[in-house]
């Protein structure tokens, strides 16, 4: 409610003329419409709605009117002020929208600009592929086991039924670690009994010695053989090994586990094939192949559709497998009458090569960021 107007004698005051009020209202509306921007509108707002604006003054005069005139005058002035404030709000909204539109256009940027301020890092695809394979088995209930890379020959060979002088022992070209012979001299042959592990299989023996069956483990890791680096060989490479020892395990279980793995990694209609082979630590032993996930075997005998991935063989060689040789169980203190087991192992480099179309092994070992970066965090 306005304060009583003391500066005017109510008696002397002329009754508010409706046309006068309408004029004030129209002037205000015109001023708002004429305001071209928010600043001008703010100015017009002060002029037409501020404390000293004509309508405000008129409003104040209502108080001085004789009671019988107040109601009518109040109605007229109120309506005028209502129209003015509505017009102001409308114009305010209008101008704000105009301004926003203009400013946002002015602030537009080229969103196609490249941004490599801190280029992304990446994990090595061999690391992530190894994890991915391990995770297939972890989800089945297997655990991940680890072992040393500089390993005792006993774990690497003897416990796995590689008897001394067996030709199989020469199949793998082994790095021997220098020891000190009793006379204090450095050893020059295999006398130290310490090697760089030639496969992840010694982890099998360590696990069986450490744990009571049932044992279900996978062992990913780095292994070493004395091959010179070239497009298809590297002296340092990675394997993943699986070992299951339990009551009543069969070769059919091995086959099923392999099938499950290739399905998890390469798609639901994948399968594996076993071919008889020889490994000292398994008996029976098999070579395992997987159906070529690219041509699904359709390139075989089909020269029009050759397959680079499998060389039109239809199958891709994965690695070796078999039923754990009872001699291995005995050497690790597991009763072969009660327990049986299966195991397999394969090279991660090879799988990376055919899964990701890598041509040259050297790309995996040289640490060139151009090779590794596109693989990102997971594979």
């Amino acid at each position, binding site marked *: 409610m306005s304060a009583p107007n003391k500066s005017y004698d109510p008696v002397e005051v002329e009754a508010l003329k409706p046309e006068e009020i309408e004029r004030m209202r129209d002037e205000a509306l015109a001023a708002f419409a004429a305001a071209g921007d928010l600043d001008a509108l703010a100015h017009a707002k002060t002029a037409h709605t501020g404390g000293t604006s004509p309508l405000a003054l008129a409003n104040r005069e209502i108080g001085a009117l004789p009671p019988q005139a107040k109601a009518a005058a109040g109605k007229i002035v109120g309506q005028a002020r209502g129209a003015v404030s509505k017009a102001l709000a409308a114009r305010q909204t209008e101008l704000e929208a105009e301004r926003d539109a203009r400013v946002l256009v002015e602030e537009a940027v080229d969103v196609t600009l*490249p941004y490599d*301020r801190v*280029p*992304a*890092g*990446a994990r*090595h695809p061999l*690391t992530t592929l190894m*994890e991915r394979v391990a995770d297939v088995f*972890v989800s*089945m*209930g*297997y*655990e*991940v086991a680890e072992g*040393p*890379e*500089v390993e*005792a*020959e*006993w774990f690497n060979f*003897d*416990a796995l039924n590689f008897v001394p*002088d067996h030709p199989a022992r*020469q199949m793998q070209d082994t*790095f*021997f*670690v*220098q*020891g000190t*012979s009793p006379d204090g001299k450095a050893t*020059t042959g295999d006398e*130290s*009994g*310490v090697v760089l592990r030639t496969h992840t299989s010694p982890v099998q023996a360590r696990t069986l*010695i450490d744990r009571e069956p049932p044992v279900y483990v996978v062992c990913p890791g*780095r292994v070493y053989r*004395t091959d010179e680096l070239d497009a298809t060989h590297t002296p*340092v490479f990675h394997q993943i090994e699986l070992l299951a020892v339990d009551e009543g*395990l069969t*070769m*059919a*279980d091995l*086959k*099923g586990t392999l099938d499950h793995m290739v399905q998890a990694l390469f798609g639901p209609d994948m399968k594996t094939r*076993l*071919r*008889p*082979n020889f490994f000292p630590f398994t*008996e*029976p032993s*098999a070579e395992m192949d997987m159906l070529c996930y690219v041509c699904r075997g359709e390139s075989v005998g089909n020269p029009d559709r050759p397959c680079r991935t499998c060389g039109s063989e239809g199958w891709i060689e994965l690695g070796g497998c078999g039923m754990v*040789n009872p001699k291995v169980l*005995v050497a690790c*203190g597991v009763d072969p009458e009660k327990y*049986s087991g299966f195991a397999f192992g394969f090279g991660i480099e090879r799988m990376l090569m055919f899964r990701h179309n890598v041509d040259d092994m050297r790309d995996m070992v*040289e*640490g060139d*960021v151009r090779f*590794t970066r596109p693989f990102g965090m997971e594979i």
Partner: protein
Amino acid sequence: MRVPLSWLREYVDLPATETGRDVQAKLISAGLEVETVEQLGTGLTGPLVVGKVLTIEELTEFKKPIRFCTVDVGQANGTGEPQEIICGARNFAVGDKVVVALPGAVLPGDFRIAERKTYGRVSRGMICSGDELGMGDDGTHGIIVLPPEYEIGIDATVLLELYDEVLDIAVTPDRGYCLSMRGVARETATAYGLPLRDPALLDVPAPNAYGYPVQVSDPIGCDRFTARTVVGLAPEARSPIWLQRRLQKAGMRPISLAVDITNYVMLELGQPLHAYDRSRIDGPIGVRRAEAGEKITTLDGTVRVLDAADLVITDNRGAIGIAGVMGGANTEIADPVTDPETGFVTGTSEVVIEAAHFDAISIARTARRHKLSSEASKRFERGVDPQAAAAAAQRTVDLLVLLAGGTAEAGVTEISAPSAPRTIAMPANHPDKVAGVDYGRETVVRRLQEVGCDVYGQDELVVTVPSWRPDLNVPNDLAEEVIRLEGYENLPSTLPKPPAGRGLTERQRTYRRVGRALAGAGYVEALNYPFIGTQALDNLGLDADDARRRLVTLVNPLSDEEPALRTTLLPGLLGALRRNDSRGSHDLALFETGLVFRPEGQPGIAVRLPVDRRPTDEEVAEVNAALPSQPRRAAVVLAGAREQAGWWGKGRPSDWADAVEAGRTVAAEAGVELIISADQHAPWHPGRCAAFHVEVDGEEVLVGHAGELHPRVVKAFGLPARSCAMEIDLDLLEKANEGPLKAPRISSFPVATQDVALVVAAEVPSAEVETALREGAGELLESVRLFDVYTGDQLDEGTKSLAYALKFRATDRTLTVDEATAARDAAVALATERTGAVLRGA
């Protein structure tokens, strides 16, 4: 083992339509690794005929001697006229029978034979060498000169058996018997369900006392020795074409008839044989261990110094052969020599044939010791059928009589140590239990019989294994035979049910988190070889007594420059940094996690434990004690820009602080807070090196370092200037982890912020000032953040100003200004007391 299909068919009546590829598939599924099937005669079409050289005109006007020949090819050329042919080879004479490719023939390599003018004449065909026909090496590289008995004009592709298929089989160590036609034929017969004609089934005369004298003084090393003598050999007799061709197809070179026959019989029966020129043996043949230092010149012309463990064949003079590996030069079969005047051929006319059986391990060791792997040693190492020796000797005698016109002497020497057949007891359902398939007893017995076993018993089988299968020793070996013959491809696919697993261990999760965090921070993982040499350690500027110089060394490194294993991850990473830089990637952040190898004490000898029982925990500990410590570490290296310049503004070079931050990142993932202090430690810049400590059981333990590399190290490795590095021990971080994070209490009362600028001596580490502020401020302090470091004109020389924002907050009330100020003053007071800090402007 290279197996010609035509030869294989001699023992198994394979269907005529069966190709090498078909046989390959069958043998692969039976467990033989048939790597390739070579198609002989590919790209060869006739006419290729036998011709007789009528005239030779020597053309001398050319740079090399050229012959213009006329050759009688009978009616093969359609006219019966002599064929005129230009030839550059010289190892034939008028009257020789040769192989002629007539115009229209195509030789391997798309070599089309046509009438053509050359050397001023018209040549109508070609006189062929073995190489040109794709026959393999016959040792001469010259024109094939055929024995005279072949008819002029007949098809030489048939005569020389040029069309054939050869299966190349990589024989695994357990299947030594497949290093023979007999063994492969047995597998083929079984795979096809066809009968086998066993070439070892020969009538062999009983041993008697008047054979060539042999004394075996080491019956363990040599448990069987058969000697036969053939006399009256025609020195001029040559191996017939069929024999030469089979040897060639099997990958061996024809040499002389007697040697070719022993090789042929070895290929056929798997029994290595040796033929001695009897006139060159002095006295009885002996078998014994060599005397250490004893010398022998082997057939390859090498003088070898023998080891006391080597088994040798001797005569009165000493060693005349390394048993089962290679014969000696002094009793070698003589090459036939033709007297140029009389045409009379002299050469070996009497031979003693040795068919012996030697200990596999002894032969393996000798072959390895002398780096001498021969066809004989390969077979003995993998196990030769001891029962085949007599048959092999007989077969050799028969062929010498047949092909060389010799006479077998009646004497038969046979020395053999007594041996019983090996038997294995096995429950009849054992193969079923191994496979997870119900084969049934009938199938098991039938399959074992096909392998060559004698099988008795019902539920419990007693299986006598054949003499050629030394690899069959335990029930699982027999199970494999049954399962492979029933077909691995017919195994069902079932899944076992492992007990519920516990997932990855905390440590395994940490490794993954560290990798992800570093990659997330822009680092790219490099997996470097762990091989290093002292050069790398010198480049790192390590002191002579630095622990990282104590190395695990390899006996047989790939490179003598890098004979040891890394004791730090840095050399490998710095190598990768330099390689990337030299390949044009200059803004680099690399990381690696992996093992380093640190010897503990003198490298020892790991004892060989028994394999017939579980080793005791003490035994395992003793073996492990011989291994070096192998902690897992993480490391990063940086060079160039950490943030690149671009349209957004300036870039920022990577610096020591990034390296230190990488350490904090790793530690945070391991759930550990680092205590950071200044250090001087190679290979880092002495003024820009941080040491990382963590608290383990109340003790501060050093876990790593970070900072800018020493300029000398940068130069030595050829790195970009101001390269930085960090290395930290993940195993130690794991020890410092105190379990799951305790969640902070969040207060919703207002914060009171107080900024302080403290002036301290330049050398005071900010970490100490901050620690003092934290402790002094008391429990109202929520956080401290250093937001500015200032040195310059407005400060005294040798001082710096550290500006901190302190946030105070209570959990139960709004702090008053006085409370916040009091806490700040207490914080500053402790900083002053500990570090001499003075409030700036105070």
